[in-house]
């Protein structure tokens, strides 16, 4: 418990997707809400890489944004190093904010095109007042060097760099406030594979050097497998399974995790055909009752349609599935 750097509990975010008032009155519709994250709870331990995977609409980016304060949670609590995050309180948050950073998906949008690279990287230093004067320039040069660029690049504008180089700049900016925790939201999904390898290796090296803790958001299971210690699987805003990375891939417990793994293309040419997935992700405005996955689940049982499953412990984590309920698991073993 003590080694948890970040913990979230009961984290929920609803978006109001209602039509404008006038339309609602005329069309006699109620307000509509989209639940992008529902009662999500997990812990990230100091020094580890925790990954959240899921398909589009699974709520992984919503959760990342709530953690760094870009979105306000509808319910739930986020604790960083034991302290509750209260983004409304400016002064109290200032000290905490310096300790976490974010790396974004699109390196073409995450750097202000009108700013010089040096100013982009120095922005956190100046905002937190960490250094002044010439020391800032020296620090920017050091950071550029650290991410594999040269100090003279500080004078250039973002458009003079390739996608991979821009992502390095974004990483340098994230490191400039000397954070302990970095949220990486699809850091390589806009990059080509050879560049992706460079960035992933760089992220690893930096983690080793500075003891960073990462929250990695990705839809790419092979990237997640390569980078993380523990993985949380999201489906329709619900955390369906958390497990140690290696275990998740060898012994997936939740039927959705199993389905997701079976759908990954096979580069090893083992002759394995991907198992075609049945059905599609339901509309998150009207998620299915009971277990949200039940319409696509091959093991669906009657009470899956009515009761939402609780989280049950597994070998290396937990999974929210009725199949894993202790009573049922016992019955299963007896049958075998």
């Amino acid at each position: 418990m003590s080694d948890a750097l970040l913990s979230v509990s009961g984290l929920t975010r609803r978006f109001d997707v209602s039509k404008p008032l006038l339309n609602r009155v005329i069309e006699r519709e109620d307000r509509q809400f989209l639940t992008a994250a529902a009662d999500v709870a997990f812990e990230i331990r100091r020094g580890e890489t925790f990954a959240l995977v899921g398909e589009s609409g699974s709520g992984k980016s919503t959760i990342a944004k709530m953690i760094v304060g870009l979105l306000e949670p509808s319910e739930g609590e986020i604790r960083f190093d034991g302290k509750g995050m209260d983004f409304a309180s400016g002064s109290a948050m200032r000290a905490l904010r310096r300790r976490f950073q974010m790396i974004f998906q699109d390196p073409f949008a995450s750097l202000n095109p009108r700013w010089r690279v040096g100013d982009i990287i120095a922005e956190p230093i100046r905002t937190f007042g960490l250094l002044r004067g010439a020391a800032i320039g020296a620090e920017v040069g050091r950071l550029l060097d650290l991410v594999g660029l040269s100090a003279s690049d500080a004078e250039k504008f973002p458009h003079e760099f390739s996608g991979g180089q821009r992502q390095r700049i974004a990483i340098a900016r994230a490191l400039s406030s000397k954070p302990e925790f970095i949220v990486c939201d699809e850091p390589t999904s806009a990059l080509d594979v050879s560049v992706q390898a460079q960035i992933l290796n760089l992220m690893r090296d930096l983690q080793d050097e500075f003891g960073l803790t990462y929250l990695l958001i990705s839809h790419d299971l092979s990237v997640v497998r390569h980078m993380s210690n523990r993985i949380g699987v999201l489906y329709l805003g619900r955390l369906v399974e958390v497990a140690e990375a290696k275990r998740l891939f060898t012994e997936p417990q939740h039927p959705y995790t199993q389905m997701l793994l079976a759908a990954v293309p096979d580069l090893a040419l083992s002759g394995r055909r991907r198992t075609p997935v049945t059905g599609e992700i339901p509309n998150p405005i009207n998620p299915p009752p009971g277990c949200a996955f039940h319409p696509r689940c091959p093991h669906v049982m009657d009470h899956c349609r009515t009761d939402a499953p609780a989280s049950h412990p597994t070998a290396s984590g937990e999974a929210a599935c009725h199949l894993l309920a202790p009573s049922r698991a016992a019955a299963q073993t007896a049958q075998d």
Partner: protein
Amino acid sequence: MTDFTPENRPSIFFRAWDSDVAYSFRRSPLAITAALVSLVIILAAIFAPWLAPHDPFNPASLNLMDGFTPPMEPNAFTGNVYWLGTDNQGRDVFSTILYGARISLFVGFMAVLFAMVLGITLGLIAGYRGGWLDSLLMRVADVQLTFPSILLALLIFGVARGFIPPAYREAMAIWVLIVAIGLSDWVQYARVVRGATMVEKNKEYVQAARVIGAHPTKILVRHILPNVMGPVLVIATIGLALAIIAEATLSFLGVGVPATQPSLGTLIRIGQGFLFSGEWWILLFPAVTLLALALSVNLLGDWLRDALNPRLR
């Protein structure tokens, strides 16, 4: 803003010359012509006191005998020759045009500046804050758009005159005019800036600034503003042409600047009285100048819009 030593960096001049906009400019004869015409008129207006052969506002230097001299012909009484002739009071038309353009341009630039500052500020706030404030500002803008702007300027002008004591009216007239034209024109800046702000504020570089807790004012001014200035510049250029015409219209209607400080519009108003009595030059030359100025600035704005639009390139 920067703490870094410049090091084999191309000069600002070279980078400007090498930019896509400059390239597009060099390849557009229309844009070059328009820029030249605007530049000549603007420079002539700025340096009017040194360029003008006469000071049309100094009653001491005026000779009523010089009145109604046709262009390039010696005056029947004094024998003086004026390039563009003189008006009824013997003022040199060429000089009045130089001084008139000075006032027209001053009013135009100031009105655009006023509208721009107001529109950008409200647009940034509306776009970034959203919610009820956005709805309120944009509904006000919608309502204002339903009135013709010249009507609105007339209204503002009339109301303002009512508040200003008669002694100051003459001196304040030009500022009232600027505010009237500016107020009737802020809406388009606000709308464009609001739209662009709503796009920019969701980009990741703004989110990155929010993550470190940067102050909203700083985000608006340092991050978003530089990225929404492109379209604003285009509107401002076209807006300058419109403001000059609006000023001329108001002055023509007699509600603009006082006759002691005639703008191009005032000159046209004065000139039209003599058109049918044969003294055509008093009207024609100020009118042609106004047309050339408004048209070339407008063409420049059109070109700028195309040059900055990546889809048309």
